[in-house]
């Protein structure tokens, strides 16, 4: 649906977008992720024909945006970073103007009513835009993009400045739109893309550093190495037990205290799932675990790792073209590596489905547990693990707003 190849945009000597290429299929919801000033908005402005590229081509629905801008623009609904609203118009007038501007040939009243219903602004249709709240303004901006039912919808930071409830509503709306439309969405909020998008493109300093399915990135994020534990029991003993457990490389007491329980943070060795072992060990000592929270590597961590790690080291040096290229290559490699590892993990799990419901007896072999303790329900540690997480993760994150997707 959208094909971008070797897109370059220079503002004077500053390079905002540096040789970006990607394709977006019909019906995909793609998230554009990047820190401020990464070139997200510039790219979107070029796709929508508001700006022209320095070089490279953009085709929308097979039409080059430069060859036939009017036909290409007809396929796109665009919500810029700042919604283009006329404060002195009522919502009704404004949408009517958008309808006329796009030269639509539907039943005007019916079409506008449908759109107002979809974005839930029917109750403010007769009000002046300048009197609306920020959330409503944003929704009017979205409504404007939907007028004419364009097959491609582009949102530049659609949830900025909205309250959590509105953010959830808008994300749901975008998901709904994604069923029939191609949606591109830019944001620097990571949960957002994770919640809404099928695919994530991470941009930094005008370059694509990662372009992967959200699923894969979520898998990379789903990390089972660090946990926050809440355990009732004598602090020193619990800590020393944790520290002395094989498979745990690091343990500390966090300040938070809840009754007689303390919060501990542990980190396990790579490729060791420590959860069940911790459970049984604590059970043995009769120190009930009342909280177990995975501090999964959040998508933020990946993002920051990808974006920063190489960037900082290069910043000190003289910025030659060569160094830049190397940095970009390294960034891409890192991100690709993380994602690849995750993808491999997914494949591995898919190939061995039997492994998921592990035999109960296994833990008894490893750790001797007295019969009476918690033997009745040994599957507890298992239930919240593994493959199901990745699927639920994004949806949960959307519903819970700012809740970390990796954590359960």
């Amino acid at each position, binding site marked *: 649906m959208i094909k971008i190849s070797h897109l370059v945009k220079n503002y004077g000597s500053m390079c905002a977008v540096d040789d970006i290429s990607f394709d977006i299929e019909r019906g995909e919801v793609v998230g554009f992720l990047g820190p401020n000033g990464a070139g997200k908005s510039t790219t979107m402005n070029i796709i929508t024909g508001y700006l022209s590229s320095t070089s490279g081509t953009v085709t929308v629905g097979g039409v080059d945006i430069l060859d036939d801008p*009017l036909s290409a*623009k007809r396929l*796109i609904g665009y919500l810029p970073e700042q919604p283009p609203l006329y404060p002195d118009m009522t919502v009704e007038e404004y949408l009517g103007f958008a309808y006329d*501007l*796009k030269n639509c040939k539907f039943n005007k009243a019916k079409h506008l009513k449908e759109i107002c219903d979809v974005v839930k602004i029917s109750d403010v249709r007769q009000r002046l835009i300048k009197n609306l709240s920020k959330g409503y303004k944003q929704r009017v901006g979205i409504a404007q993009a939907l007028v004419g039912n364009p097959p491609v919808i582009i949102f530049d930071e659609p949830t900025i400045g909205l309250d959590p409830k509105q953010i959830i509503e808008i994300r749901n709306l975008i998901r709904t739109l994604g069923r029939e439309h191609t949606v591109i969405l830019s944001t620097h909020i990571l949960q957002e893309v994770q919640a809404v998008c099928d695919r994530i493109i991470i941009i930094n300093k005008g370059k694509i550093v990662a372009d992967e399915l959200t699923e894969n990135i979520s898998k990379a994020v789903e990390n089972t190495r660090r946990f926050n534990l809440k355990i009732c029991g004598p602090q020193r003993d619990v800590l020393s037990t944790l520290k002395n457990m094989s498979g745990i490389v690091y343990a500390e007491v966090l300040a938070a205290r809840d009754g007689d329980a303390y919060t501990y943070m542990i980190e396990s060795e790579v490729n060791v799932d420590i959860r069940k072992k911790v459970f049984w060990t604590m059970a043995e000592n009769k120190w009930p675990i009342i909280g177990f929270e995975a501090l999964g590597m959040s998508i933020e961590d990946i993002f920051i790792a990808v974006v920063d790690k190489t960037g900082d080291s290069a910043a000190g040096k003289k910025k030659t073209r060569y160094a830049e290229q190397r940095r970009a290559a390294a960034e891409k490699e890192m991100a690709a590596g993380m994602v690849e590892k995750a993808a491999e993990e997914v494949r591995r799990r898919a190939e061995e489905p039997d492994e998921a419901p592990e035999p109960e007896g296994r833990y008894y072999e490893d750790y001797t547990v007295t019969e009476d303790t918690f033997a009745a329900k040994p599957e507890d540690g298992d239930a919240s693990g593994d493959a199901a997480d990745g699927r639920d993760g994004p949806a949960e994150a959307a519903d819970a707003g700012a809740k970390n997707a990796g954590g359960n």
Partner: protein
Amino acid sequence: MLAIYKKEMRSYFINPVGYVFVGVFLTLAAALCCYTTLQSSSYSTASYFYFLLLSMIVVIPLLTMRTFAEERKMRTEQMLLTAPVSIIQMVLGKFLAAFTMFGGSLLISLINLVPLYIIGAEEDNLTDFSFTHIGPVTAEIVGSVMGILLVGGAFIAIGMFISSLTESQLSAAVLTIAVLVFMVVLNLLNKIGSDSDGTRVINSYVVRYVIDWFSVISRYTAFQYGILQWSALLYYLSLTFIFIYLTVRVYERRRWA
């Protein structure tokens, strides 16, 4: 284009600026008419229209200052530029809306001349000289109105162009007034003093000729006498088109910048 035209027309009347324009224009026209014809007991409308033309220097920027500056400031131009509408259509839509406002006000202001006709008709009945024309000369009025419409079109195009260069309505207005004043003053420079007593400010004929060529007002004189001068018509139309074209170029250029 029609959508933009309609939106512009509407925005003139949901904003105070449209009412201010019409109000100021009609008040000025009425006052000028009163002083130049009724008060000075004259049927000649030439000076009325001449002063009206000069007053346009102040009035036209009211119309044009917001056309592009505001859109740019509010970022609403992004909507226009990403809509399936070409830049030329956008600029023309706005130009036509401003021109409609201006032309409409001008036509309404013609009511001012009705008393002249009434007085003229009365006086005509009283006198026996049926062979002389008493009252305002309709051809002159038609010519002047045409001339003013053409000059107004050019002024609007200039104002629009300046508005497209800036984000601030105020600086657009001030700059437009400055440019229009300059274009008019150029002509006045030529007129100061006389050859007979050697008090000409600009002595060189060549310089005067060139200034005359650039001056917007000098070509208006023919219209005053009800003469349709094709060169003047062409001059004003091309001036209008040049500035419309330049406005389009400003937008094209910004896209590529």
